[in-house]
């Protein structure tokens, strides 16, 4: 949108009397405090619960370190930590290599079928994660469709076991490579290609210029996304529960889940201690990242007018590379998803039976007959709509304060909005569980959807912020200044000028939030009550207890709702997936 089109309504500007009533600075402080309480505050009770002898909702008890002592003395915990580290390292290496390679190939070479490859590559990030896990489980399980087919085609068994740590990491790589892809592609599209030109004129081949000049410049993006992937891999729950159980493999997520839900009485103190450890590790990683990334200005290359990068010609190799990429994505994304769809529309999915002879919609009928499933769908739609709308507005206002004011603490506000992205979902859920257990001991508030909605929203603040912020920074400050000079208060200028100009960005941010809130599940694990099931969590429970068909049908419903919203968002607001 051109900023020059913005309407300037002098009559709407307020008179001076109104101005002094509530000082702008005070409202900024109030907003800041509120944001900190909601985003950071809930972590305090987790720390409390980990250091207290009794659950916080019971009276009495005293300070203790016994929870930590028990945790550190439990060999199962160390086993889970070891498994998780191995899993996270494998995931991070795989996702970084694959994501970076994909981004460089797509942004900078003449690879054929780029659009098709991009769609397949980023699909896992917008689709519900559990559906993809279920797909891998149907397709690549030692007995799955893909495995049987592979065996009959090549005469050897599939070279990996899905129920091992490397096998689980493959699933995780397919789900996290898009994160690296987005980060790296973002940097590539902003780089100034004159740097490469300099290398070319000194005699380097196009490929050499790309590898020696551009790739090193990607370091901050790779570090950033790699760290994010590592943090996400440390806290996975769905993969750990669904794929870990057949091999008896515990990861940190499933260990904490088991100590809380599969033990009577639940060891809530110990789980809280584990959650605090996880949080500390993730925070240390963030600090480490800042050290490693070094001074961000070293990587600034856009000065003056950058021009689009030169396309590197791969020659005949481009066909081979594209074919390999497509095959990998067909096996890792399309095959698993297709098997979920097939499983949802057949009464039995087995290599012994021709699927076309057992087509049925009865799986969908049984899902729609199930009150738990329908209530979950309703609740999730409600949270996604209202929660998404409220979060969009809140993030917009907070971003304007953080970037368009002279508010002293604005820097911390920016950090606070990005931080929830690295807080593990299980920890966030537990944080809100304890916070509401303390705030509403009678439980009346917990019986409503509010705690889950807030936890989901806070967890996705970073997503909304990173979708919204670029649009905000693209709007020049001249008009606000003009308004201020004509007598408008800061708030008046912010709401009547800036906020109006960013409405399209808000719409895009709403669509992305809607999808994220619709499919979110791990924070709900601790917060759910019988009246507040949500779609993602019900999907998890069904995948753990139910039989193939109906579970797949529920997954297909989730997938269709997601694609429908994204499709509409794309048609109406040009929304694109992002992380």
């Amino acid at each position, binding site marked *: 949108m051109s900023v020059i089109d913005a309407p300037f309504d002098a009559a709407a500007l307020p008179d001076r009397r109104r101005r002094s009533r509530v000082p702008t600075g005070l409202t900024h402080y109030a907003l800041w405090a509120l944001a900190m309480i909601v985003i950071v505050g809930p972590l305090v009770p987790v720390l409390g619960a980990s250091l207290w002898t009794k659950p916080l*909702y019971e009276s009495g008890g005293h300070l203790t370190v016994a929870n930590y002592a028990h945790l550190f003395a439990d060999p199962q915990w160390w086993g889970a930590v070891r498994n998780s580290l191995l899993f996270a390292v494998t995931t991070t290496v795989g996702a970084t290599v694959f994501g970076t390679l994909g981004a460089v190939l797509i942004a900078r070479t003449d690879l054929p079928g780029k659009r098709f490859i991009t769609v397949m590559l980023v699909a896992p*990030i917008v689709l519900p994660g559990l559906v993809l896990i279920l797909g891998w489980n149907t397709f690549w399980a030692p007995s799955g469709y893909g495995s*049987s087919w592979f065996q009959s085609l090549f005469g050897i068994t599939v070279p990996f076991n899905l129920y091992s740590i490397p096998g689980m990491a493959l699933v995780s790589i397919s789900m996290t490579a898009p994160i690296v892809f987005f980060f790296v592609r973002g940097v590539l599209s902003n780089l100034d290609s004159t740097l490469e030109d300099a290398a070319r004129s000194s005699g380097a081949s196009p490929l050499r210029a790309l590898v020696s000049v551009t790739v090193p410049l990607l370091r901050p993006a790779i570090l950033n996304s790699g760290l994010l992937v590592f943090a996400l891999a440390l806290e996975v729950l769905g993969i750990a529960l669904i794929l870990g159980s057949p091999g*008896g493999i515990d990861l940190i997520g499933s260990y904490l889940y088991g100590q809380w839900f*599969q033990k*009577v009485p639940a060891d809530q103190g110990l789980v809280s201690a584990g959650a605090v450890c996880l949080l500390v590790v993730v925070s240390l990683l963030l600090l480490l990242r800042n050290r490693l990334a070094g001074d961000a200005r070293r990587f600034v290359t856009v000065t003056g007018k950058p021009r689009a990068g030169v396309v590197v010609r791969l020659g005949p190799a481009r066909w081979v590379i594209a074919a390999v990429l497509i095959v990998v994505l067909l096996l890792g994304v399309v095959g698993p998803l297709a098997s979920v769809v097939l499983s949802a529309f057949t009464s039995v999915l*087995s290599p012994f039976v021709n699927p076309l002879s057992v087509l049925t919609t009865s799986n969908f009928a049984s899902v729609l007959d199930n*009150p738990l499933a329908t209530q979950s769908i309703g609740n999730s739609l409600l949270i996604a709509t209202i929660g998404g709308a409220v979060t969009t507005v809140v993030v917009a206002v907070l971003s304007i304060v953080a970037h368009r004011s002279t508010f002293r603490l604005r820097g911390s506000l920016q950090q606070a909005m990005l931080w929830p992205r690295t807080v593990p979902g299980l920890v966030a859920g537990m944080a809100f569980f304890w916070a509401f257990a303390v705030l509403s001991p009678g439980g009346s508030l917990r019986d409503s959807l509010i705690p889950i909605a807030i936890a989901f929203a806070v967890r996705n603040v970073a997503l909304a912020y990173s979708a919204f912020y670029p649009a905000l920074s693209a709007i020049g400050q001249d008009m606000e200044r003009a308004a201020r000079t004509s007598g408008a208060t800061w708030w008046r200028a912010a709401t009547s000028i800036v906020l109006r100009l960013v409405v399209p960005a808000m719409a895009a941010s709403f669509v992305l939030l809607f999808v994220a809130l619709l499919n979110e599940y791990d924070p709900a694990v601790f917060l759910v009550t019988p009246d507040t099931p949500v779609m993602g969590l019900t999907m998890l429970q069904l995948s753990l207890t139910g039989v193939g068909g*109906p579970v797949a049908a529920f997954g297909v419903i989730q997938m269709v709702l997601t694609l429908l919203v994204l499709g509409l968002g794309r048609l109406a607001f040009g929304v694109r997936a992002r992380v």
Partner: protein
Amino acid sequence: MKITRTAWLASVPLVLALAACGTSAPADQPQAQVRANATFTPVGDDVIAAAKTEQPVLVYGNANDEQMQPVIQAFQTKYPGITVKYLPLGGATTFQRYQGEAATGVRTADLLMDNDGRLWSDFVAKGQVLDYRDPNMPSLPKFADLGGGVVAVSEDPLVAMFNKKLLPEDKQPTSLAKIADLATQYKGKISTYEIEDSLGYPSAYAYLEKNGQSGWDVLTKLGPATVTEASAGSMVTKLLQGGYVVAYNISGSVRALAVRKYSSLLNFRYLTDDTPLIPRGVAVTKAAKSPNGAKVFLNYLLSAEGQAAGCKSGFTPYREDVDCEYGLNAIKAAVGENNVLYGDYGPGMVSHQPEIAQRWNGIFHK
């Protein structure tokens, strides 16, 4: 993500076409009948009237939804105005969710229904069962009273389930010891529950109590070849796909559901040396917010009519006035009265759990 408009629209007719294929006819149901001389002992009309003013009855249990919904439908047809909501939860979660919710004051289950005797004992000891005796009690066999207000709603057998394309019926072993003999041949293609499952430990305990060291020897052979699962659902799915040849000690509910539905691929067998009957306990909870509704539902579950309804979706009726092809009498006839291992919620089962679970995990999760 870029979803091209054409690709998007192209997918619509496919979905519609699949939807048009229609629903296949439901698999035929097991035969179950209430005998003409059955005793009928309902709750009082005042309880039924009070139940209709309460919120829906909330039930937590370890049966999956497919097994529970038909019973709930039958109940709601008989008692219009009372609704039942069911949450399928496995392992200890049934009890843990209740306790966590009761302690923090949020709405929680009015009725629990689970096979885990160890957790039931703990639950009773904590005083969480409502002090209540159902009018059906005098008509039930003695073993149905599990003590402390917990009643068996079903005597669930553990069975072996086979993929008959991979192992034809005439070649299938008839005992656990003979399945163990196939362990090396079918390594990784044999499955059972994790020991943490509601049916996992009770069935292992019943088997080991009868067989002692020779039982451990059989398990030692089976362990390294067995893949453990957290639910019957995943075992069935993989048996159908051919990932497993046999699942032993799997919930008897598969007899009425999966085996009937996929009869061309699957069959089940009662094992002569390992057919434990694990009582599925049911009780009204102390924190029940719909206690009257819970009482009406409990009464229905224990009645001849409710037991017959349960037979159709995989529960195992034990009342003498109910005939069911998967009922207690049918099991006795199949394996011989003396080979049936009756599980109970006794103190021995509780005290041996840590030791057995540890030894078991040592064998199965090396």
